[in-house]
């Protein structure tokens, strides 16, 4: 079909960052141009918030809209079949990407946040009793905290929090200690969006499963930075999002073990998720379709498929190795700056560097480095309890992606040094 007309995904050749950069049109633009003043090259270090898109993803979505678009799962006509085939093929790609055992374990959602809410409102509301416990960690994104707080109000569950150690790693002893008889779910991030910490997923499932407790992982960051194998880590649920994986916004993924999904009630009602509907009674489709009410994010699914083709063509291992080099370099450069404190130094962390500078607020750092063309995130990073844990109101965060270079890490360090000098 015409999707193959998009430029071929790169093959598993040695990692070539310049070749990768050529695939991302936005990386050639300048920022802060003004009449009489040349712009600065964009140094995009905010991929943990949202990654930029390669031409392969942009082309795949455009070509799909131009040649094969129709609603899916409905029509008998030519385009409907084409669109359905293309969209459902992405389910297979996602399953393969996460090494899920079957396509039926992959649920499409609008984003990662919706996937958390789905598990809380379906799995949680159906199976948790008042007094039952959900264990989360102190390093969770609000997306893996607030849905459980809402469930707490609705269903009387109790939230237990695993603390974070000074280097940003999870307190595994405390986690083991929290796994009491009332715990119904452990819901923790696979990699922290603030600290970069990669949590020991297999160890967590081993501890929890020994007590018969299922485990949900927030893979929003991890799935972008490293190969993920949901069977190897024995995840019960694994959540990821398209837009951080160089794909479009508007699509997320929930992987769930079949044994869980098959007994979970629907999350939202509507078209596409039903078998038969009468005014008296409605029966629902099997998983995963039961959880996909309404017209799905079709174009976004096509984009996610193209993004997965793109990263797997390069190889998640190769991407991880490249990012680790960047992380080491950036850490070395930033650490050399007097008064700079890196928050999150756990061994084996992903390429995310949160930091503060003595005497300069992160928000000011952000405005200044932006003027040098360097885009970073500043603030609480949707992880307010974690800010409290480290005694900071906010941090500056540089997050690295496959298209970043050591020279860009240098640009960050130089800009940060200049900020520090400005504020004296």
């Amino acid at each position, binding site marked *: 079909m015409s999707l193959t007309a998009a430029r071929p995904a790169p093959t598993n050749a040695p990692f070539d960052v310049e070749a990768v950069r050529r695939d991302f049109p936005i990386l050639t633009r300048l920022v802060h141009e003004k009449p009489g003043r040349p712009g600065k090259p964009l140094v995009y270090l905010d991929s943990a918030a949202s990654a930029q898109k390669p031409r392969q993803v942009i082309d795949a979505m455009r070509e799909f809209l131009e040649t094969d678009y129709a609603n899916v799962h409905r029509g008998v006509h030519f385009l409907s079949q084409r669109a359905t085939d293309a969209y459902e093929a992405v389910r297979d790609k996602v399953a393969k990407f996460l090494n899920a055992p079957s396509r039926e374990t992959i649920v499409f959602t609008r984003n990662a946040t919706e996937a958390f809410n789905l598990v809380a409102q379906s799995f949680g509301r159906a199976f948790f009793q008042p007094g039952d416990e959900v264990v989360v960690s102190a390093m969770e994104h609000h997306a893996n905290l607030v849905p459980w707080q809402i469930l707490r109000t609705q269903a009387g569950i109790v939230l237990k929090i695993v603390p974070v150690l000074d280097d940003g790693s999870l307190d595994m002893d405390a986690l083991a200690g929290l796994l009491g008889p009332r715990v119904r779910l452990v819901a923790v991030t696979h990699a922290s969006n603030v600290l970069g910490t990669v949590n020991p997923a297999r160890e967590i499932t081993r501890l929890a499963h020994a007590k018969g407790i299922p485990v949900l992982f927030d893979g929003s960051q991890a799935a972008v930075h490293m190969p993920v194998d949901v069977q190897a880590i024995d995840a019960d649920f694994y959540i990821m999002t398209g837009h951080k994986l160089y794909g479009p916004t508007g699509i997320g993924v929930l992987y769930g073990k079949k044994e869980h999904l098959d007994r979970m009630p629907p999350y939202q009602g509507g078209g596409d998720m039903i078998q038969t509907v009468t005014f008296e009674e409605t029966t629902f489709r099997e998983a995963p379709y039961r959880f996909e009410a309404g017209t799905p994010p079709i174009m976004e699914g096509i984009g996610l498929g193209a993004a997965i083709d793109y990263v797997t063509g390069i190889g998640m291992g190769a991407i991880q190795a490249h990012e680790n080099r960047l992380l080491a370099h950036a850490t070395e450069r930033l650490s050399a700056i007097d008064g700079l404190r890196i928050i999150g130094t756990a061994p084996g962390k992903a390429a995310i560097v949160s930091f503060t500078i003595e005497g300069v*607020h992160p*928000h*000011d750092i952000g405005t*200044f480095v932006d*003027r040098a063309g360097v885009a970073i995130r500043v*603030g609480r990073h949707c992880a*307010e309890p974690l800010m409290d844990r480290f005694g900071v*109101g906010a941090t500056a965060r540089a997050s690295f992606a496959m298209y970043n270079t050591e020279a860009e890490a240098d640009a960050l360090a130089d800009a940060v040094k200049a900020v520090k000098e*400005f504020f004296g």
Partner: protein
Amino acid sequence: MFDDLRDLYQEVILDHGKNPRNFGKPDEFNRHARGDNPMCGDKIAVYLLLDQDGTVRDARFDGRGCAISQASASLMTEILKGKTAAEAEALFGHFHDMCTKDDDQHGDHGHLDEEALEKLQVLSGVREFPMRVKCATLAWHTMHAAMHGEEKTSTE
């Protein structure tokens, strides 16, 4: 590297940001509110002491935030002393316009203290930085909440 940031980060702002005036919770106050900017994590509290006829006898603040929000809060507390509640609100209206609108779009806020206006002018650079307007206005929003007996305000 940062020449065009000098309009925003003027010496006065850097000074007030680094050495905020009227900083710290006072022993005596009769109006107060907490302000929160969830986007960047700034949190401040404003404490006012109003006398019988509604004149601000003392204004203080504490909390943490960026140079812009700290400087704005510091300047505000200096300006508020001796002003009536109505004058304070009018200055807030002017300040908000200054941070968000072109000069010809400003509303009529009545007669305002010239010295106060001059002082506030150093923050007018924020107009070119829409993402930073909330930093500059947080203290004023919080002052407004305190005047109206609201415990907590947010600039989101």
